């Protein structure tokens, strides 16, 4: 089982609040956090946090803080109040790295960057490509079909620097008809995604809406490694399962 008692770092998913969601910028359809299951006083920090230097979120929302080993968490008095998500498989242990938001706090002149993650909404998902250390993000909401998404990713990872703005470059009706090499098998890379169950699938096999509801992250994988990846029901044996699952 993936991450049974130790939280998997892959567990974070969901919508990143963008500038639109902060009170400083006008937005009238901001939705409240889906999983406001932490005691109310803590979550209110989400709604009111400014995006420049200001009071940081309370320590409960920082990943890996306080630095206490997971095995100790069962002796916490208020573990029942820890944030939980609907598809949290880890169980009763506090699962900070799954649900907690992370804050980058830079003391000094730089403004604090704040990212909050909540489950339930698909928006930005992480994209990694084999052989490239730094991942990128793509806004799935900006796409209506696989082709535009794949073309955007092609631009991002294979294309020229000036086409590296994912939002907006996914438009174009002609792109939708032009097959992407990431989807048609003609490239040495293939586009895959990790679904909510932790399985890796080839992108393109299920209806778009179904894909949106189950995708957690994307990976541009070498075709040679993608052998054995099958759509839907087959489980992938990967090097991730080399260590026996706990």
């Amino acid at each position, binding site marked *: 089982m993936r991450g049974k008692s*130790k939280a998997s*770092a892959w567990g974070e998913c969901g919508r990143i609040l963008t500038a639109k969601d902060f009170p400083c910028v006008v937005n009238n359809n901001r939705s409240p956090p889906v999983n406001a299951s932490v005691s109310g006083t803590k979550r209110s920090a989400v709604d009111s946090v400014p995006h420049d230097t200001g009071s940081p979120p309370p320590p409960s929302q920082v990943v890996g803080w306080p*630095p206490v080993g*997971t095995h100790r968490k069962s002796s916490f008095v208020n573990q029942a*109040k820890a944030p939980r998500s609907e598809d949290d498989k880890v169980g009763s242990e506090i699962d900070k790295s799954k649900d907690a938001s992370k804050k980058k*706090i830079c*003391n000094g002149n730089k403004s604090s960057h704040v990212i909050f993650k909540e489950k339930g909404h698909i928006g930005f998902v992480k994209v990694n490509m084999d052989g490239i250390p730094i991942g*990128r993000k793509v806004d799935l909401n900006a796409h209506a079909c696989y082709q535009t998404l794949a073309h955007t990713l092609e631009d991002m990872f294979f294309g020229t620097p000036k086409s590296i703005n994912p939002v907006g470059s996914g438009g174009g009706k002609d792109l939708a008809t032009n097959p992407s090499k990431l989807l048609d098998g003609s490239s040495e890379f293939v586009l895959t995604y990790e679904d909510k169950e932790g399985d890796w699938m080839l992108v393109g096999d299920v209806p778009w809406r179904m894909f949106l509801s189950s995708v957690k992250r994307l990976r541009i994988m070498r075709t040679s490694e993608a052998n054995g990846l099958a759509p839907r029901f087959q489980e992938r044996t990967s090097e991730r399962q080399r260590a026996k699952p706990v």
Partner: protein
Amino acid sequence: MNYFPDEVIEHVFDFIASHKDRNAVSLVCKSWYKIERISRRRVFIGNCYAISPERVIERFPELKSLTLKGKPHFADFNLVPHDWGGFVQPWIEALVKHRVGLEELRLKRMVISDESLERLSKAFVNFKTLVLVSCEGFTTDGLAAIAANCRFLRELDLQENEVEDHRGHWISCFPESCTSLVSLNFACLKGDINLTALERLVARSPNLTSLRLNRAVPLDTLQRILMRAPQLVDLGTGSFLHDPASGASSKLKATLLKCNSIRTLSGFLEVSPRCLTAIYPVCQNLNSLNLSYAPGIHGHDLIKLIQHCRKLERLWILDSIGDKGLGVVASTCKELQELRVFPSDPYGAGNATVTEEGLVAISAGCPKLHSLLYFCQQMTNAALITVAKNCSNFTRFRLCILDPIKPDPVTMQPLDEGFGAIVQSCKRLRRLSLSGLLTDQVFLYIGMYAEQLEMLSIAFAGNSDKGMLYVLNGCKKLRKLEIRDSPFGNTALLTDVGKYETMRSLWMSSCEITLVGCEILAKKMPMLNVEIINDEDDIAPSSEDILRVGKMYLYRTLVGSRKDAPWFVDIL
């Protein structure tokens, strides 16, 4: 060079146990290197990726005891993805292949499978000691293999591991002929255990001096076990719950009166306060007490208990003891050397915590204190300065203020001066963890005064690259540096690249270093593995050039890039 025959030198070397001393001895001359390497029995590998098993075995063919460490320390706090690495399998395979007469294996933060455990149990006839700390990847089936096959097993010590528990049958796998157990610790197992088999095992182990049970062992079983093993020195109770009407507690108390060898006590994984009185008989001789896993005991019950423990040298406790309770510790436990105060309610309102008052009281009352881990609500510079004056013996000083950037609440100043006083006063300080609001100034102090510092943990601290540079330039003995969420960037990383070859490892996460900086470092220093762990959710960058690295872990190595890195780790 040698005025004595080799055998005499070897005999002299037998008295040199510490691996640091042995390493130094081996550098004196070729002859001593040769003699030392043939005679070394215990090998310590602080980073399993710094060297290959083949090279270790080649150099130390007579090795009997191997200690290996795998994942970086921050893995304890969920900052390292599950499958990052630290696999022991290639080591076991190499040991088997080269017919090493392995007797002891100690692993920390490594991944070990049931297959490896079984291999271990069958391949090494004289295998005696298995210690697994913060490891994962195995189930109780692997433990069953160890129990069944290791005929001369003396020590099976499991600390804080993630073990998939297939329920109690493993303890039945110790054969009736197994009577050699000295130490058995399975406190971290979550499942049920065959209680009858456990009692029989204890009954046929006359040399058993250390026994730590898990929560599935109820009080009445504990009492029967203690009847059979009054010679125990180190006891970890299981569940310490009982029905008050049953009389189990008084029965236990009576049994404990006969156990006058107990010096170390731990466990209490579930406990009701009224049960605690049962252990009063052993308190007066206790050196070491660990109540840090015992939830829900109020301060006053803890205080009553502590008042019986005048000889305590090590105390691990929850912050529910309160400042007042720490005052009682200070006035009772004059022999105290090590104190750890863990948070009982870190996400709560802050009622059940300790503050600077408790620490000041301890420092005033316990002159022998040298090791501290203290989770608290707040700290002041004045308190730290007082602590530094009272206690200059600290070798380990780890302070964790629950709000990581909280200033001194009285003066609203950063805690630079407080920590500065600590490093200036404690000349033997080897390990330091900082928290609270801190500027570059604290690092200036650390660089200036912390001459013996070997390990430094930094979180949410500093203003600029200067902070990190003060440390790298000043702390000559630094071996491990771990930094998170601090504004140190490429300049700090790249100014003195040679420094990293003198250290075991450097961890930086959520700092200001970029991919370009890491690539430059990797290129300049081929003896380092610079790993980018790519599971972070960084801010979407606007340009390739300033791609900030989420997590970087670098370490010196003699064997180049590891081949077992998962897909989300890039080794530059």
